[in-house]
């Protein structure tokens, strides 16, 4: 029942393999460019590829960026635990630093970690300490490889990181990790209801969408006034509102705990 892949599927796969992650609009353009047959929906096209990728524990997964609310397609490892995919590119102590950075980010209210705090971690690594200059180089590598984003000395997890590692993070952090009330995905950079008994979280793009055109924004859970600034919704964000949280379904689909690969 699984359709075989044509050259267009293979081209699409090769491109996403070399990029790691592509934006939804890029995916649409690439699909048009690669496609021999017309009228095939992008998601069906990707499903054909995903069926063939299953034995290799790879998957093209859709996710939303916490920052711009846009959708992305990432090629991910499908495995239950661990940062296996990164394991082939980084040394043990670099991986440990990444885990610690992730800890800082998840713990924080803002979903960020300052370079100062990360440098302090580098000094107390169990595997092998990293000096300041080495740490900066490693952090640059993480940013270049699209696992972290950096702005003004503050680091956040990239959309690629979250899309790939969400199952892992949910397992590791359990209840300690914030979840968005609207889309049910992990929420690191988010707004929070200030009512003590409530405290629900929402991604900024999710806030923008939820409170769109409402003059009196109220918390969906406790109905108290929502005290934060409501961000503007981006134009392209509204167009993809039907396709939203596909990644949340995949969180519950554990596949055999095997490693996989690639960029």
């Amino acid at each position: 029942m699984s359709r075989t892949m044509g050259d267009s599927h293979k081209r699409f796969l090769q491109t996403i393999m070399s990029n790691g992650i592509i934006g939804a609009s890029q995916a649409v353009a690439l699909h048009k460019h690669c496609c021999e047959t017309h009228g095939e929906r992008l998601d069906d096209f990707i499903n054909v590829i995903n069926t063939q990728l299953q034995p290799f524990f790879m998957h093209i997964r859709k996710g939303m960026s916490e920052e711009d609310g846009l959708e992305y397609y990432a090629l991910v490892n499908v495995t239950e635990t661990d940062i296996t995919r990164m394991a082939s590119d980084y040394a043990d102590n670099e991986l440990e630093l990444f885990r610690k950075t992730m800890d800082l980010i998840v713990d924080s209210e803002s979903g960020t970690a300052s370079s100062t705090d990360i440098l302090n971690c580098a000094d107390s690594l169990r595997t092998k300490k990293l000096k300041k200059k080495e740490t900066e180089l490693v952090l640059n590598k993480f940013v270049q490889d699209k696992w972290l984003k950096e702005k003004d000395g503050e680091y956040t997890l990239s959309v690629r990181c979250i899309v790939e590692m969400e199952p892992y993070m949910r397992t590791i952090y359990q209840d300690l990790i914030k979840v968005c009330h609207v889309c049910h995905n992990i929420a690191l950079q988010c707004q929070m209801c200030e009512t003590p008994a409530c405290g629900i979280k929402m991604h900024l793009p999710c806030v923008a969408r939820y409170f769109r055109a409402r003059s009196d924004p109220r918390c969906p859970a406790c109905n108290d006034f929502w005290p934060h600034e409501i961000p503007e919704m981006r134009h392209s964000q509204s167009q993809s509102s039907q396709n939203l949280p596909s990644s949340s379904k995949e969180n519950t689909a554990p596949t055999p705990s095997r490693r996989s690969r690639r960029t």
Partner: protein
Amino acid sequence: MSQRKKAVSASQNKTQRRSQVSLDEDDEDAHFSQITSSQVQRARENYTSDQIDRKVAEVVQFILIKDQKKIPIRRADIGKHVIKEYKAIYTEIMNRVFRKFDQVFGLKLVEIDSKNHIYILINKLEPIHGEPVNMRPGNPKTGLLFVILSVIFMKGGVVKENTVWNTLKKLRVDPGEKHDEFGDVKKVVTDEFVRQKYLEYVKIPHTDPVECEFRWGLRAEKEVSKLKLLDFVGELFDQDPQSWTQQFRDASAAETSSQRS
């Protein structure tokens, strides 16, 4: 920190950490030729189709990871780290691996060294026109490599190392200095490109002080189309590629023989 070590071990099941034991390759590889057909038959009966499929998938993953670093894959390593007890049906597994690379990824697993059984992955799909340019992450080192390959090819296939260094210096890439983009240029050219089998860098015998020469490596021979390279040089000098008759002949010959393989 050895990234190569990481690449190998990362392909395995997360619960098993493999140590990079240095192995006598000939020993490991010799097993393959000593397998009898009755052993193969018995082995095929012993393993379920699912188990074999899983082994095929593991080999594919292993090769993809190794190829990420552009390190050629040795058959001995595939046997030792992945196939292991399934060695008797090695051929059947590898046949399926070749097919999988073609059917799913559009890649070709090519043997560049039939004596030592070394493989690389190359792209089977021809690039189509109008491809959104920003989709292919460019690597400046590719440009550097291409210049060197062009020089070697245009000069008949082998050049003294000084020719390469002088050409690069004209492009403001000095092997003696640290380069903004490439860092230690000499290391990239004589170590990284050689390890990746793009170049060969060998000592010229009886030279004192020791001089080395550059040739195309086995990977370049398989991956790079000489005709396309000649086209590129033609554009660079605004000349018809056929005006270099000898090189054009070499390039055409290389093209036909690669189409046959």
